[in-house]
């Protein structure tokens, strides 16, 4: 199968990465090469194979549900892209 320009633009929308036509065309070529390489997996019959979902083979641990956090408000806001000591600021969402 081949990935067309329309699909590339659709994926870029899903991935929230804006791309111009020139980049989209380049990506189309790259993605088709990569998927041609990936298609090799279709040689294998995997009907009766169980998917490997965790390599660590452990079950998730339980812990006590207790509050451990210190006051880290400042730490969390420290790398905020726009200066405002109390909140993260983003463009207006509700008109």
């Amino acid at each position, binding site marked *: 199968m081949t*990935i067309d320009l329309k*699909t*590339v633009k659709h*994926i*870029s929308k*899903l*991935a*929230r*990465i*804006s*791309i111009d036509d020139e980049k989209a065309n380049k*990506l189309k070529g*790259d*993605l088709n*090469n*990569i998927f041609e*390489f*990936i*298609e*090799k*997996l*279709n*040689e*294998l019959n*995997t009907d009766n*194979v*169980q*998917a*490997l*979902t*965790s*390599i*660590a083979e*452990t079950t*998730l*641990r339980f*812990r006590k549900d207790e509050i451990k956090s210190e006051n*880290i408000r400042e*730490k*969390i806001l*420290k*790398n*905020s*892209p*726009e200066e405002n000591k109390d909140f*993260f600021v*983003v*463009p*207006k*969402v509700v008109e």
Partner: protein
Amino acid sequence: MSDITSQSLFELTSNIKEKKLSSEEITKVFIDRAEKSKKLNVYVTDNFEKAIDQSKKFDSNPNFDLKLPGIPIAVKDLFCTNGVRTTAGSKILNNFVPTYESTVTQNLWSQGAILLGKLNCDEFAMGSSNETSFFGNVQNPVGENLVPGGSSGGSSAAVAANLTPVTIGTDTGGSIRQPASFTGTVGLKPTYGSCSRYGVVAFASSLDQAGPMTKNVRDCSMLLEVISSFDQKDSTSIDYKRNCYSKELSKDIKGKKIGIPKEYRVDNMPDEIEQLWKNGISYAKDCGAEIIDISLPHTNYALPTYYIVAPAEASSNLARYDGVKYGFRSPGQNLIEMYEKTRSEGFGDEVKRRIMIGTYVLSSGYYDAYYLKAQKVRQLIKKDFDDAFSKVDAILTPSTPSSAFKIGEKTNDPVSMYLNDIFTVPINLAGLPGISIPAGKDKNNYPLGLQVIGKPFDEQNILNISYALEDKINFKNDISDWWVSE
């Protein structure tokens, strides 16, 4: 006493403990050498001033019981370091200063080590040549205009060029072992779950592992002992008794069964690598190991599987870079436009390519055909290794299908770049430990590595086999300092 920067970690710690050298002395010579080695471009951010202060502090009240007493160490810029900029080689994290410390780096500092600085790497560890870094490519000290491998390319170059005694890198598909092979150094990827992923910038969470990169096997065992620990903060960290790897290090590998997988003899592999492998096999025999031919039938499917699983996980992990809470932001008229511009301007081409692959394979209607299929094949690859390890104790293969290549040689062909990791990727997919040791040189005098793969949690065994082989191989890197400016 030999030049300080060329000493091994073992020698440096002994010299500090015997008071022949001070931490300040050692720290200063590494900094001096770094100042003269800017051409290699190994550092993204240095921590030199603070490092000298910390070395003085160590010397004024030394604790010689620590495992890394006053030893200066530079680390890959993928580990979050409290108060020191952490970029992951990306523009999108160019201004990011973590307010917390990764567990593996914390383990270093708790044992007395001092942070020298943060080392260049491929953007978000996606690359095999360190050419995808926002901060420019790194020069391989082995020769001018050669790539140092990737993604831990700044790390491998820094160890080979004597700019840090040892370092830590991360390995998702070969990012420790391939650069180690390209620079004539030692690199170990531990079993998945050995080293905590807390505070390590995430690429593909089911594959990522941190690990030591060193000049020799003994140093590797010393460093692994420090960084490997159980950590509540990583839900996939595994609680098991870790060895004292350096204490239990032994060259006695008599009777060990070492498997040679026929599928690793790939098309167009240079004769030199075939020969290197044969030499490794005969050295192992000389040490009393038993050589057994084995088969890993799904080897050829590992790379295609990896290029579904890793980008899928990456596209999910990298969704957090939206310009809202930290990192680079490009302003937009509305929220969506801000996201799209931030990510378009903040990520480089290779990262975008992988996010796009990942988004596609996880998108509606394609999940079963790609992601689920890949997880099933991953099971088959793991089973290959399970079967092999019922017959052998370890597996010996080449580390890479070629030696270091020229800068720019493969940047326009992603698939040929991906093929570099053909021998390393299966090990990540199966969650196993693997180590690359320098084993010889090709006709250009560029280093080549051999890889020893072990059973889960059997790091001691692959370290011991490598230690025995290292002794027989007796590799010398003879790097000429061509980049040094006075």
